[in-house]
């Protein structure tokens, strides 16, 4: 025995029927039929909402064409960005590399070690370490704690592999030499901009402070994925099969990049998340009791002052702090 068909379902059936008729007729859909449709849509907002929902879904189903076997698609390109992969640059032309003097940048403050030359050697930072590195082209990379990267520069390309951790890039514009950051299987392509890339397990976060970058996804199960364009203020959270885009204000972006100035800034974040963030920078680890892990905290903290943070939790939020070897346990009193 079938359950009764609800009002919503019968409206949905009628909207789908009308759309299917229009889909069948195409150009032959008459003005009379259009008038009937408009009358039906005007009768009830439920009709209109359902029509818009189904029509949009049916249009979006055009994307299924991307799953077609690898031959020229009948339905054309992915619907918002043309597939365009960089040409394979000839490897031969590694010739005129300029050495850049090792400079101490005053604005870096006490947190950053002197700028160092980054070459094909991998460079890495330990817990609690931050380093700014000048690249041959005048661009600058700032590596956050526990991060590893290596580069390959040619006359027509600039490539950086972020093997682990987080890095902020201040890229010198050079239209003839695209700047490419490889994060796992994803690639971030820029011409000149300021942005950061962070790797957490199989998630890659790309945050753009200035300018514009293009993120090229690795094919998912052999299927090409459309590249994403990110503008200033955008953050993309990339996973092998999906991407999440968020837009932030300039202020929020600056806060998210505060680690470069040796500060961590949070607004209403759970204690567990803040502890995890601190733990990226220190050998000594904050361990948060599950009962307090959801506690919401905001503020700007000195990255290096772990004890100060623990004391603040103790005095300001009435938590207990217990030291066990290399661990600081935070819990309820």
């Amino acid at each position, binding site marked *: 025995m079938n*359950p009764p*068909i*609800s009002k*919503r*379902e019968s409206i*949905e*059936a009628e909207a*789908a*029927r009308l*759309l*299917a*008729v229009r*889909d*069948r007729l*195409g150009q032959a*859909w008459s*003005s009379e039929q*259009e*008038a009937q*449709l*408009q009358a039906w849509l005007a009768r009830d*907002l*439920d009709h*209109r*909402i359902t029509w*818009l*929902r*189904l*029509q*949009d*879904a*049916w*249009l*979006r*189903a*055009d*994307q*299924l*064409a991307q*799953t*077609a076997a690898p031959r020229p698609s*009948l*339905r054309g390109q*992915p*619907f*918002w960005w043309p597939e365009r992969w960089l040409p394979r640059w000839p490897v031969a032309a590694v010739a005129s590399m300029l050495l850049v003097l090792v400079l101490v940048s005053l604005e870096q403050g006490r947190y950053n070690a002197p700028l160092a030359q980054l070459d094909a050697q991998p460079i890495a930072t330990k817990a609690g370490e931050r380093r700014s590195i000048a690249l041959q082209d005048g661009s600058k990379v700032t590596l956050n704690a526990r991060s590893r990267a290596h580069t390959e520069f040619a006359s027509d390309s600039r490539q950086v592999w972020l093997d682990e951790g987080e890095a902020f890039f201040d890229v010198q514009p050079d239209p003839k030499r695209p700047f490419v950051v490889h994060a796992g299987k994803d690639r971030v392509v820029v011409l000149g901009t300021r942005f950061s890339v962070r790797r957490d397990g199989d998630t890659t976060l790309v945050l753009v402070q200035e300018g514009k970058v293009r993120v090229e*996804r690795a094919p*998912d199960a052999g299927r090409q*994925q*459309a590249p*994403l364009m990110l503008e200033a203020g955008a953050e*993309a959270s990339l996973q092998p*099969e*999906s*991407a*999440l*885009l*968020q*837009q932030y204000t300039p202020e929020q972006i600056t806060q998210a990049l505060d680690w470069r100035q040796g500060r961590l800034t949070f607004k*209403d974040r759970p204690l567990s998340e803040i502890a995890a963030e601190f733990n990226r920078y220190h050998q000594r680890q904050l361990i948060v009791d599950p009962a307090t892990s959801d506690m919401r905290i905001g503020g700007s903290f000195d990255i290096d002052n772990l004890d100060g943070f623990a004391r603040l939790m103790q005095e300001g939020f009435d938590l207990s702090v217990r030291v066990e070897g290399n661990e600081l346990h935070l819990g309820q009193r």
Partner: protein
Amino acid sequence: MAPKASPSIASQPPAPADLAASARLAEVDAWFVREVLPLQGALGQMIRHHWRHNDDHADLCQEVMVRAYESALKQGLPDMAKAFVFAIARNLLIDTARRNKVVSFESVNDLEDPLVGLVDHFTPERKAQSNEDLKHLVVALNALPARCRETVVLRKIEGLSQQEISQRMGVSEATVEKQVSLGMRAIANALAGLEVTEARSWLQRTLPFKRKT
């Protein structure tokens, strides 16, 4: 996703008196497709989270969207579609709980609090739709009964017209049209974040023919 203009709607010249009204409708339609429809998944999640009664979710979701549309039509487009839609959802849940004596207030207790929890959960964010959509589309497609699935594949992947499909499959055009409408509904519900199992049971109730196994 940018709304695609429907040529048939544009081709219909409205009476001059209706011009302003229909331009207004077109504007709200475009806003609705662009800003509200992508929220369906998050909205469904929010409703499921706060409303433990199983059956009403799709109806509640529909009602929220109707109210959002109505309000945008009467009071102008809101600046923040997401906050706007979720505020409507919250009010609807509270109203429904008050009206419906069966529901205890505990089930919407956390809704009575200021929106803190919600806002944090649903800060303005947009799925990069191509990837997520495609995943849902493929799952929905695979869950369709064979004949319906073949019809959608021929229409959307092979790009055949309904006439060509009826010749290829050796069935009447009316049958193809029916399969298109069923496939369309299944796909719309999959994109709206309804579980595929739900979509499947819904299909089994709705399909006019028996599945051969």
